[in-house]
């Protein structure tokens, strides 16, 4: 109980500190998320044309995905130095897998008959993709993005390890100075952020699911 009281006090008295970290965390995550979404979805679309390309790309991202995050962060520090840039690079690498995979799967799982009808009616490849395939794949793609967003927000919490900003600063500070309440406060806010983001995307997902059958 004492702990929770201290925790509450901490959040209150140092609210400015936490709010700043929260904003940094949001910006950091958003930049990574934006890049991942654009690169990931585009890649997913491109590899949907070729099974070979798909297995290569997905296989590669799979491997990258299994590398422990701290190792990844540490590795890039030696190349791009400490700070936000490195953090974003590492976050992007992790985030790519769910988005590429879901985009790919979403696109190829569109009913063959629907595609045949669209092609038979004289759709250009672009029309087929933009009017039919992509909209129908969207729920799966959004699900992948949702996954990625939560993961990125959580992972960004480790970024402070290499000098980036965000709520990880509080978590790391708490760990290195034996300040449990600080650690928990940081972690709590990361979890909260992830929860809210997930919730918002869940609403988007539901709206899209309603129409596609």
């Amino acid at each position, binding site marked *: 109980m004492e702990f929770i009281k201290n925790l509450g006090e901490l959040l209150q008295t140092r609210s400015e500190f936490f709010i700043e970290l929260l904003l940094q965390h949001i910006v950091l995550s958003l930049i990574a998320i934006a890049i991942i979404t654009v690169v990931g979805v585009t890649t997913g679309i491109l590899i949907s044309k070729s099974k070979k390309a798909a297995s290569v790309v997905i296989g590669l991202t799979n491997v990258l995905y299994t590398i422990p995050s701290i190792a990844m962060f540490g590795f890039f520090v030696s190349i791009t130095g400490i700070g936000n840039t490195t953090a974003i690079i590492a976050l992007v690498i992790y985030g790519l897998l769910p988005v590429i995979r879901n985009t790919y799967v979403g696109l190829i799982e569109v009913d063959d008959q629907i595609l045949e009808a*669209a*092609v038979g009616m004289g759709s250009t490849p672009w*029309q087929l993709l933009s009017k039919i395939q992509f909209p129908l794949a969207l729920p799966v793609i959004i699900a992948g993005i949702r996954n990625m967003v939560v993961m990125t927000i959580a992972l960004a919490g480790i970024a402070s390890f290499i000098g980036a900003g965000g709520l990880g600063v509080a978590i790391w500070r708490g760990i290195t100075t034996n300040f449990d309440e600080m650690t928990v406060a940081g972690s709590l806010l990361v979890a909260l952020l992830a929860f809210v983001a997930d919730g918002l995307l869940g609403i988007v997902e539901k709206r899209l699911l309603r129409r596609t059958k």
Partner: protein
Amino acid sequence: MIEFRDVSQQYEAKKPIIRHLSLTVSQGEFVVLIGPSGCGKTTLLKMMNGLIQPDSGEIRIKGKELKAWDPITLKRNIGYVIQQVGLFPHLTIEKNIAYALDIQKASKTLKKERARELIQLVGLDEDYLPKYPNELSGGQKQRIGIARALAADPEIILMDEPLGAVDQINRAVLQDEIIRIYQTLNKTIVFVTHDIEEAIKLGTKIVVMNQGEIMEVGSRDAIVFHNKSHFADDFIGNKGFLSYLNIVKIEQVVCPFNGSTNGNTAEKENTLWVTTADPLIVGIRICLENGVNQIGVRDTAGRVVGAFDLSCLSRLKF
């Protein structure tokens, strides 16, 4: 309209799918391609709008060689209806119908008008326009499928077993609808089916295929009665004949009353009647049920036009 000359097609298969096939489809015909599974009828159909390319031979669509057509333009000029319909689940019925126009960048007003026009043509209420495909029954979906194929007003419509996935009762209804649409719009239709009854019922020209070759081509009468091909004969068989009796109307076989000089004597007592619009099978059935050889025929307005006579039938040339 459509010409095939010595066309062959193989895919990567060991046996050819289509062998040295020649066929002509003229404007306004309702051509039915029928044959057992694997005979190549669907492949033949798909060569007409360029979905499948021939390995050899010449194909002309509307006088122009297949190779000379831009593949996208060709498809946009031909309506295409498939068995599973393939309606776009994320679009409203209205948008589904107007799709062919949408990809050709038609105006909003044109698309709206055309959708309204076509949904009525296929026998559904305008209320359905804002709905989504998952709200429709199987039969309704296929009606929309047909409407969709008509959107850009193509001269040729290809249908690949469109009623294969529709239940028995609806199938008969939809067949009638298709006939009605055909007669109203005067399109050229190529229709693939494995159902003999359907083939006889719908087609003005019936093409019987087997193993990539055409066994027989002819009108309804010719296919049922004057088959040169043994295979076609067997294939069409009694089912085909029965279908024929269900389709052809009595008005085609009216003959004079027995024992009359001018052909229209006064009716005897107890004469049974059928109308000109009834199919042959109704006349035959009434004769058999009542043990008579001759019954009277009236037209739809009620006037006497002659007799339906079992012995007369054999003298008629189909």
